């Protein structure tokens, strides 16, 4: 989604007011949970839906 909107991690972190390390945690899939407020601000910055950012993968 970041590539589609041609936005870098630095720029996104400025727009959503999240640190680079937190964004990196989210990007690399290491995050255990995400607040709705964070999800909302990222969707707003990238002009997309939560479904565009989240994907369910079965642990099997």
């Amino acid at each position: 989604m970041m590539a589609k909107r041609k936005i870098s991690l630095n720029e996104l972190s400025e727009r959503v007011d999240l640190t680079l390390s937190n964004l990196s945690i989210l990007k690399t899939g290491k995050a255990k949970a995400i607040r709705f407020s964070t999800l909302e601000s990222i969707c707003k910055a990238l002009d997309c839906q939560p479904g565009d950012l989240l994907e369910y993968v079965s642990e099997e």
Partner: protein
Amino acid sequence: MSKRSDLVFKGLHVIVWIIFVGLSIEAGGIIVNFIYSLFKPAVIHHLYQKLDLSEMYARSQVAYFAMYTLLMVIAVMKAHLFYVVIKLMMNFNLAKPFNMVAVAQITHISYYTLSIGLMSYFARETTRYLQQHGFEVDKLNQFWGDGQAFIIMAAVIYVIASIFRKGVEIQNENDLTV
């Protein structure tokens, strides 16, 4: 509130150091007495804290060495326990207390405390056995009268370690929540 808890923590640290020094002196005194008694048995009349095991030594040297070894081991273990507590307190970060190092150290303290409790219980039972066989052992009980307290303390510390383990999980989850 955080300044107050910092002050309490520092106060506890000082107290733990004082107890550690006291226990180290006791353990050192007991060990020195033992080594000295090997070369000069006359000193067995006046051991650490006015302990007189001369009668036991005269009746059975095995009993004397067994009881004194128990005495030394328990004294050293108690001093070492407080050393481990000091190490934990020195590495403890009140701002972020839940980490695996603290959990490991607290678990180690609980096992160690349990060992001291069991050792003290064993020593007390041995003392009782010797007393039944006519040995004069009343003054030895002062060194292991607190065995049950150590066992209870071990259980409480184990519960605290379990809580800390859960705290680490919750803190990790919190750290990885964006």
